[in-house]
């Protein structure tokens, strides 16, 4: 096993450990294990980063092409975004919702990671890399926005119940969660926009037109539209707090369901491996 795979396994293990530690923190309703979990997650992120650097710079292998790599990159972005927020706000226990997602993504990705790579003709070009990278970062930001929304809904419910509750103490403040939702939409929408544009330009080069009515294209555009509308409502109408949190979660669930339907019942030309 080469050093990169060792890093990858290490990161996978660290994601698992941090997830378990976070769950333990929730179970005993104390923040101290979550503190340790944050460090473990930081370690996982560090190993994961080294893995990407090794693959990309060391081996010249493009980690943005195959679905397994994309999933692992998705997990990496989510962990990174969360850790960046953790630095600025005391949103520690939010990690308990990010870390498991990252871990599951890593598990799925680990099935096919590290295999031999032959790049199909349609994917040879730096625009493809930019398209994949920006789209994934954008969608990962939406995922974090929705996770923050979910925790917001829980915390909102707890505060409105007007009872003393240890979870209420444990979970981040509403304002911090709302800020995370805001920030993720604010950056996610333009990044995905650029990602989609890059993709459509590339599609014109290899498939002859910008748009193919491909299920995956439709799904992505829908996701973009939903979150763009949400961002618009936030910025222009002043939607805040409960409503945005609720819609972020609903959008995420619907899009996830649509993704599963798409994967199960439709074929797509946007699948290369």
């Amino acid at each position, binding site marked *: 096993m080469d050093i990169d795979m060792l890093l990858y396994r290490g990161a996978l293990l660290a994601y698992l450990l941090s997830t378990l530690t976070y769950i333990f923190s929730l179970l005993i309703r104390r923040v101290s294990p979550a503190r340790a979990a944050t460090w473990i997650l930081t370690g996982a992120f560090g190993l994961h980063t080294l893995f990407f650097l090794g693959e990309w710079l060391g081996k010249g292998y493009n980690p943005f092409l195959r679905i397994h790599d994309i999933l692992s990159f998705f997990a990496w972005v989510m962990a990174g975004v969360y850790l960046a927020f953790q630095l600025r706000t005391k949103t520690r226990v939010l990690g308990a919702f990010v870390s498991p997602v990252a871990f599951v993504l890593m598990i799925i990705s680990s099935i096919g990671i590290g295999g031999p790579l032959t790049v199909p003709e349609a994917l040879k070009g730096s625009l493809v890399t930019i398209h994949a990278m920006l789209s994934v970062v954008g969608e990962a930001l939406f995922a974090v926005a929705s996770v923050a929304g979910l925790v917001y809904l829980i915390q909102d419910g707890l*505060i*409105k119940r*007007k009872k*003393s509750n*240890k979870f*209420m103490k444990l979970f981040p403040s509403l304002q*911090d969660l709302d800020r995370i939702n805001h920030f993720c939409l604010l950056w996610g929408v333009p990044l995905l926009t650029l990602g989609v544009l890059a993709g459509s330009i590339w599609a014109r080069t290899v498939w002859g037109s910008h748009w193919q009515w491909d299920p995956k294209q439709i799904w992505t555009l829908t996701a973009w539209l939903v979150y763009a509308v949400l961002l618009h409502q936030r910025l222009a109408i*002043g939607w805040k707090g409960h*409503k945005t949190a609720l819609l972020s979660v609903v959008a995420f669930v619907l899009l996830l369901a649509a993704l599963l339907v798409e994967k199960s019942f439709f074929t797509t030309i946007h699948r290369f491996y």
Partner: protein
Amino acid sequence: MNLILIGMNHKTAPVEIRERLSIACNEGFNPLDEIKAIPGVGEALYLSTCNRVEILARTQEHTDAEERLKALIFRHGNLSEGDMARCLYVYRDSAAIRHLFRVAASLDSLIMGEPQILGQVKEAYRLAVDHQAAGIILNKLLHRAFRVAKRVRTETGIASHAVSVSYAAVELAKKIFGTLKEKKVLLIGAGEMSELAARHLIKHGGDQIFVANRTHERAIQMAADFQGVPVDFDHIGDSLREVDIVISSTGAPGYILTYDMIAAVLKRRKNRLLFLIDIAVPRDIDPRAGDIDNVYLYNMDNLQDIADDNMQIRKEEAEKGELIVAAEADRYIEWFNTLTVVPTIVSLKEKAAGIIRAELERSNGWLLNLREEDREAVEILANSIVNKILHDPMTCLKEESQEGSALAYVAAIRRLFRLEAPRDNE
């Protein structure tokens, strides 16, 4: 061990009696010199707060130090024999240690988990050190007590749940807004409770206070107290657009803030979160306002319920604290038991024998070149050098133990030769 702790606290003595004793609460009086002058008292600590008066002392056996200590309390408090018997508690040795740990960890406080007591114990210890009343036993004991207090604080939730109404409000505000920095507070109506809550909010970072009152003069006066801004009572709706937290406590018979008013203002403030605290009876704010998204409405009963629940949580957490206290007391006693002469001499000899053995083994290479007799001679030489060096300290220990003052020497020897029990190396 000969530790004795005599005292009274809020549970055993009524306030009139505690008052008479805790002159120190106000006047900085300290009877340490007097306590030290009692024959048979080796070390002493005098702790006096508004809720307790305690003397902890290490006494010598076969003395009437205990009676004299009681008499001292008796004299200072002007207590009758009967009062004294009713109010005083006396703990010895391990019970005294546990009691001190419980006090320092705030498990014995009137409001369990309150943080001041640790500072007061530290101050009492500082005075004992200043008066040269603290020696080897109390030094270690008090440092242990501080550590127990810290452990109980960090490892249990005893101090982390607000048990007063105004702190409960502050905690809620923090769960809504994260930080209270730059948060604006509107006070409607005057009242002790609302002012207290407002002061807590300011202390935790609250930015600006607006004050509205039916009598505008009163609003101006209160605003001056808080360095805030007086607001016209009839235009409360306008300031609702700006503020984040509202504390209302007027004597008005009907609602000051209606559902429609709040629903309307929320649109104008672009749905920014709004925390309403209604501590008026009858209520000032329409309870239905709490159903509006991004509006969090708490009334007096809600806050009181939370404070009560939190008190219950503290009591549950206190049980974990008791376990920590028990374990730490056991460890202290374990350490104390090493402070006797015989085991110290034994471990000293063992250590020396160990060193000789190790050094001989290290030199095995060239020792093997020697004749058998020579090798034996080297071993004898090594042993006798070590024994000569250790002879004087061991004789000294034995002599001191006959005079009953070996503790300090034992502690010093254990420290110098690193004979401390392995767990006590910190």
